[in-house]
C-alpha cells in the first residue's frame, strides 16, 4: 500500500515540472481527439441502427439498376407476402422558365408497404398522412423543388410530353433511408403516369420493397445473391445501413489525420521522455542504494507513468464529452435526430489502443531503465541516447495506428514515406553540417566554431531535437500547404475547366438534339466521350463484397454502376502508369485499363479478371494496364477503359459525357431542350461551383479544426524541445560564464546553436513537404505539385525566426540566475 501511495506521490511530483506537464498535455490532446472521434462515431452508428429499424419502409429492399425480367419478378413475388416496385430516375423538370434536376420516384399502387407518406398543400402548411402515393396523372413535388420551380398545387407540369397535375407537396417518404445522405430535389409520380417512351438512364434504380416472414426473407436473399449478382439488399434485421460505410470511411479518414497528430505527439513525448528517463534512472539508482530491487523500481516507474496517463485520460474524456456534444449538434443537418450518446466500451477501447501505442513508445525507455544501476551514482557513467531504438518504436507505433484507422493505404504509405525522406534528410544534414562545421572551426577562434564544437559533442541529442522540430515543421507545412492548394484548386475550378456546361449524361438520341440546339443558339459542343454503365460484380470469380471488405472511396463508388469508356488511343489527358496499353484495332477486346488509385484501394494486380454486369449480360476483362490523369486535354477522365473493339460485343445503349460552351443568351433557352429531353443530364458550371463552395465550406471547417490541433501539438513539440534541453543549456551557460564570457556572448552562442538547429529542421521539413507534394498531390488529388517558392521561403524564414526567438527567450530566462545556480543546473 505504501508503495502504491509513493508511486502516486511520485507521479504527482513529476507533474509539477514542465516536462511532466507537457507530456500529460500531449497525451490528453491525443486522447481527446481520438475519444471525440470514437464517441461521435458511436453516436452516429447508434443513430444508423435505430434509423434502419424505422425508415426502411419494408422488411427487405432489393435494388437493381435494370428492371427485373418477368420471370424474375414472378419468382420474387412468389416468395414474398407483399411487394411494391418503385423506380428512381434522374430527370430535369421544367415549369415555365424554371428548371431543376430531380430524382423522380415512380411508384405503384402498393407503395408504401410499411409506414405512411406525409404530404401538405404548400411547403409551409400543416402536414397530413397518406397511405398511398399519387394517382395516375398526378405529381407530388418535394418542398424545396416546389419552391425552386415556383410551382403550386393545382398547376400543371409537362413531363415527356405528358401533362401532370401537382396534387401535393411531398414532405416524407417511409423508405427515405434508401436515399442515404442524398440532398437531390425529389418528386413522385404513379408508375402508370410515365410515358412508355420516356427513355431510361443507366443510373436508374429499380427497388422492390418486400414484406415477409424471416424465412421468406432469407430465401429471397439467397435467391437474389444467385440470380441477381449486381443487386444490393438492405434488411431491417441484421442488415447494415446504407450510410454506415460512408460514415466508416469518414471516420477512417479522420483516423489518418490522427496518425499525423499522433506522430507529432510522439515527437513531443520523445523529447520529454529524455528528461523523464534521466530522472527515473536517478530515482531507481537511489532506490537501489536503499535496498529496493530494480524490478520494484521499474514497476513503480511504470505505475507512475500509468497514473499520469489515467489522469490525462480523465481530463481528455471530460473535454471529449463536450466536443462530442457540439459536433453531434452540428451533424444533425446530415443525420437528423442523431443524439450524443455515451459508449463506455468504445471509449475504453480507444483509451486502451492509445495506451498500447504510448507504451510501445516507452519501450526504449524501459529497456534503458532496466540497465539503471547504483554504479552510476558512484561513477557518473554517461547515458546512451538510443536514437535508433526510439525511432524504430516510434515508427512502429505510428504504423500500428495507421493500420488500425486508415482505409487508404496509398495515402498512408505516401505520408509515411515522406516522413521517412524528411528523417533521412535531416539526419544527413545534421551530421553533415555539425561535423563539417566542427572541422572548419578547429583552427579558428570565435563563438561560431565553439558552437559547432559543443554541438558536435551533443550530436545525438542535437539530432533528436532537430528531427523533432523538423517533423513538426513538415507536418505543419504540408497540412497548411495542402489546405491552401486544395482551396485554390476548388476556387480556380471555374477558370481551368473546359466549357461552362457539363454534359454529365446524354443518350444516343440526345446527341443530335444537342448539336442542333447548340448550332441554333451559338453554343459549342466541346467534347462528347462515349461510355456504357457497367457494374463490377466480381474479381477473379469472387463476388466484389467478398473479395474486398476494407472500405474505401473506390469500393463505395463501385457499389454503383460506373462509366466504362472505350478507346483505341490513350486519351490526351491520360498517360500510361503501368502495364501494357493495347494497340489500336486490337482483336483482343477483353482487356481493361484501370486508374492506379482504384488498383491500390481494391488490391488489383495485372492479369486479374474483372467481371462486369452491363445491361442483362456479364462480361470478363483482363487487367492489362493502368492510366493516370494528367492536366491538359480536358478534365474528363474515366476510371475504367477498354479497347474500342469491345463496343461491338457489348449489348447496352451508349451514353455520352462531355462539355459545352454556352453564350450568355443561350442559358434561358435550356428549358426548351429539357422539356423535349427530360432525361438529358446537364450540369451548369455555376451549379457545380456552388456545390464546390458548399463542400469547400465543410472542408474548411474540418481542416481549420484539424490545423488548430496540429498547431497545438506543434506548440507542445516546441515547448518540449526547449524544456527538454534547458538543463543542458543552463549547465553550458554556467560553465561559459564561469570562464569569463559575458551574458551577451552566451546569448549569441545559443543563437548560433538554435539557428543551426532551426535551419536544418526547416530544410528537412521543406524537403519532406516537397517529397510529400510530389507523391501525394497527383496521386490523391489530381493536382500537379507546383510549390510557390516565395511561400516556401517565407514559411522557412518564419519557422527559423520562431524557433530562434523561442530559443533566445529561453536562454535569456536561464541567464537571469547566478553562475552558481546555472552550474547546479
Amino acid at each position: 500500500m505504501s508503495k502504491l501511495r509513493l508511486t502516486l506521490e511520485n507521479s504527482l511530483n513529476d507533474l509539477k515540472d514542465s516536462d511532466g506537464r507537457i507530456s500529460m498535455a500531449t497525451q490528453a490532446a491525443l486522447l481527446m481527439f481520438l475519444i471525440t472521434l470514437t464517441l461521435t462515431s458511436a453516436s452516429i452508428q447508434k443513430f444508423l441502427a435505430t434509423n434502419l429499424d424505422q425508415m426502411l419502409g419494408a422488411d427487405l429492399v432489393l435494388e437493381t439498376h435494370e428492371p427485373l425480367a418477368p420471370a424474375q419478378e414472378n419468382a420474387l413475388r412468389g416468395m414474398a407476402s407483399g411487394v411494391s416496385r418503385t423506380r428512381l430516375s434522374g430527370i430535369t423538370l421544367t415549369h415555365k422558365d424554371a428548371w431543376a434536376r430531380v430524382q423522380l420516384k415512380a411508384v405503384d399502387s402498393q407503395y408504401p408497404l410499411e409506414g405512411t407518406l406525409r404530404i401538405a398543400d404548400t411547403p409551409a402548411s400543416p402536414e397530413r398522412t397518406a397511405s398511398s402515393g399519387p394517382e395516375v396523372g398526378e405529381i407530388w413535388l418535394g418542398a424545396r423543388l416546389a419552391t425552386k420551380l415556383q410551382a403550386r398545387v393545382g398547376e400543371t407540369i409537362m413531363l415527356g410530353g405528358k401533362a401532370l397535375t401537382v396534387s401535393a407537396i411531398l414532405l416524407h417518404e417511409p423508405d427515405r433511408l434508401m436515399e442515404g445522405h442524398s440532398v437531390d430535389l425529389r418528386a413522385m409520380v404513379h408508375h402508370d403516369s410515365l410515358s412508355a417512351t420516356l427513355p431510361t438512364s443507366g443510373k436508374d434504380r429499380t427497388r422492390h420493397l418486400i414484406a415477409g416472414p424471416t424465412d421468406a426473407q432469407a430465401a429471397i436473399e439467397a435467391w437474389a445473391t444467385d440470380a441477381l449478382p449486381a443487386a444490393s439488399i438492405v434488411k431491417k434485421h441484421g442488415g447494415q445501413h446504407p450510410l454506415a460505410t460512408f460514415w466508416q470511411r469518414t471516420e477512417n479518414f479522420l483516423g489518418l489525420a490522427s496518425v499525423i497528430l499522433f506522430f507529432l505527439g510522439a515527437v513531443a513525448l520523445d523529447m520529454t521522455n529524455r528528461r523523464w528517463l534521466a530522472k527515473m534512472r536517478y530515482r531507481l539508482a537511489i532506490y537501489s542504494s536503499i535496498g529496493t530491487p530494480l524490478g520494484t523500481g521499474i514497476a513503480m516507474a511504470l505505475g507512475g507513468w500509468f497514473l499520469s496517463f489515467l489522469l490525462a485520460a480523465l481530463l481528455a474524456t471530460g473535454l471529449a464529452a463536450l466536443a462530442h456534444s457540439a459536433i453531434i449538434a452540428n451533424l444533425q443537418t446530415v443525420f437528423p435526430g442523431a443524439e450524443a450518446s455515451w459508449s463506455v466500451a468504445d471509449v475504453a477501447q480507444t483509451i486502451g489502443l492509445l495506451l498500447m501505442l504510448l507504451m510501445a513508445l516507452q519501450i526504449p525507455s524501459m529497456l534503458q531503465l532496466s540497465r539503471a544501476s547504483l554504479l552510476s551514482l558512484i561513477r557518473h557513467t554517461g547515458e546512451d541516447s538510443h536514437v535508433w531504438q526510439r525511432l524504430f518504436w516510434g515508427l512502429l507505433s505510428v504504423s500500428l495506428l495507421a493500420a488500425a484507422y486508415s482505409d487508404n493505404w496509398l495515402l498512408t504509405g505516401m505520408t509515411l514515406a515522406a516522413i521517412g525522406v524528411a528523417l533521412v534528410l535531416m539526419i544527413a544534414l545534421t551530421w553533415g553540417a555539425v561535423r563539417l562545421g566542427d572541422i572548419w572551426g578547429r583552427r579558428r577562434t570565435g563563438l561560431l566554431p565553439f558552437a559547432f564544437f559543443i554541438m558536435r559533442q551533443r550530436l545525438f541529442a542535437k539530432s533528436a531535437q532537430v528531427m523533432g522540430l523538423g517533423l513538426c515543421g513538415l507536418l505543419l507545412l504540408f497540412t497548411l500547404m495542402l489546405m491552401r492548394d486544395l482551396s485554390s484548386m476548388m476556387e480556380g475550378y471555374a477558370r481551368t475547366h473546359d466549357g461552362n456546361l457539363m454534359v454529365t449524361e446524354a443518350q444516343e438520341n440526345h446527341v443530335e438534339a444537342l448539336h442542333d440546339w447548340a448550332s441554333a443558339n451559338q453554343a459549342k459542343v466541346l467534347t462528347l466521350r462515349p461510355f456504357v454503365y457497367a457494374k463490377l460484380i466480381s474479381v477473379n470469380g469472387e463476388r466484389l463484397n467478398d473479395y474486398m471488405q476494407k472500405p474505401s472511396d473506390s469500393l463505395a463508388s463501385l457499389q454503383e454502376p460506373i462509366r466504362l469508356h472505350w478507346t483505341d488511343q490513350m486519351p490526351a489527358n491520360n498517360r500510361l502508369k503501368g502495364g501494357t496499353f493495347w494497340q489500336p484495332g486490337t482483336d483482343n477486346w477483353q482487356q481493361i485499363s484501370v486508374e492506379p488509385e482504384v488498383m491500390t484501394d481494391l488490391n488489383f494486380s495485372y492479369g486479374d479478371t474483372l467481371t462486369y454486369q452491363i445491361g442483362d449480360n456479364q462480361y470478363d476483362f483482363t487487367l492489362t494496364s493502368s492510366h493516370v490523369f494528367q492536366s491538359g486535354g480536358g478534365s474528363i477522365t474515366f476510371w475504367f477503359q477498354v479497347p474500342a473493339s469491345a463496343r461491338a460485343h457489348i449489348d447496352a445503349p451508349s451514353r455520352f459525357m462531355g462539355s459545352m460552351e454556352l453564350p450568355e443568351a443561350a442559358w434561358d433557352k435550356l428549358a426548351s431542350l429539357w422539356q423535349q429531353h427530360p432525361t438529358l443530364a446537364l450540369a451548369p458550371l455555376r451549379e457545380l461551383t456552388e456545390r464546390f463552395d458548399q463542400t469547400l465550406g465543410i472542408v474548411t471547417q474540418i481542416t481549420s479544426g484539424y490545423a488548430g490541433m496540429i498547431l497545438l501539438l506543434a506548440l507542445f513539440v516546441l515547448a518540449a524541445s526547449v524544456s527538454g534541453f534547458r538543463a543542458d543549456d543552463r549547465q553550458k551557460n554556467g560553465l561559459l560564464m564561469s570562464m569569463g564570457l559575458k551574458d551577451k556572448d552566451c546569448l549569441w552562442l545559443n543563437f548560433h546553436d538554435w539557428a543551426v538547429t532551426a535551419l536544418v529542421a526547416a530544410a528537412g521539413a521543406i524537403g519532406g513537404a516537397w517529397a510529400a507534394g510530389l507523391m501525394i498531390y497527383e496521386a490523391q488529388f489530381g493536382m500537379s505539385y507546383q510549390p510557390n517558392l516565395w511561400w516556401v521561403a517565407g514559411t522557412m524564414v518564419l519557422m527559423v525566426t520562431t524557433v530562434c526567438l523561442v530559443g533566445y527567450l529561453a536562454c535569456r530566462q536561464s541567464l537571469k540566475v547566478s553562475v552558481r545556480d546555472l552550474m547546479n543546473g
Partner: protein
Amino acid sequence: MKTTIELENISHEFTTDRECIRLFEDLSMTIRTGQTQAIVGPSGAGKSSLLSIAAGLEAPTGGTVRFFLDGTNVDARTLRANSGFIFQQFHLMPELDAIGNLALPLRLKGARDAFDQAADWLAKVGLSDRARHRPHQLSGGEQQRIAVARAFISNPSFIFADEPTGNLDARTSESIASLMFDCARETGCGLVIVTHSRRLAAQADTRLHLEAGKLEMAA
C-alpha cells in the same frame, strides 16, 4: 551465525578503446558485521571498484566473492536488499523534503510507521526543524546527515560509503564521520568506507591501503 562478505583472490580490470587497465590482482579480504573498515589509497587505485565488488554491484574479473547472511550463502541481490549506501554527492531525491527522503527506504519496504521512525532519526541527526525542507534548501552537511540517516534507517547488515566527506569542510566532515561510526556501532552493522581522509580512516577498526594493485593493512 556469520554475516560476512568474503573476497577471495579477486582481481579486476577494465578495458578502454586503446588498452586494458588492471586495477588489482589476487586480493582477499573479509567484511564482518559489527566491524568498521576504511579503504584508503591514491586516486585511480581502484578503491571504488573494490567497494562495488564488495557490495555486489559488479563481479570481479577473477576470484570469488561470497555473501553470507545469518550463515546462509546468498546472492548479490539479496545482499543489496540488506545494504545501505552513502555517497560523496549525497544523492537525495530533489522532489522530496528531508523527512520524505528519510522515510523513503521504510516506505519502499512497506512500513506503516515510516514517517514516525523518520522523525525519530531526524531528531537523532539534529535536523527536526528541517523536516519540511527540500535538499536544495539544506547545506551540504545537512544533506549528508540526512543521507547517513537514510542509509541506516532500515537497519541494514552492511553500509558502504564512497568518499562520504569528500564534498564537505573539515569541521562538517568530523561531525559526519562521528555520526556514521556512532550509528554503525549502535546498530552493529558492517561499515566499509572508501576515503582519502586519514582523519576519517583513523576512526575505523581496520584501515586498508590499496595502491599499485596491492591491499595492505595501514598503520
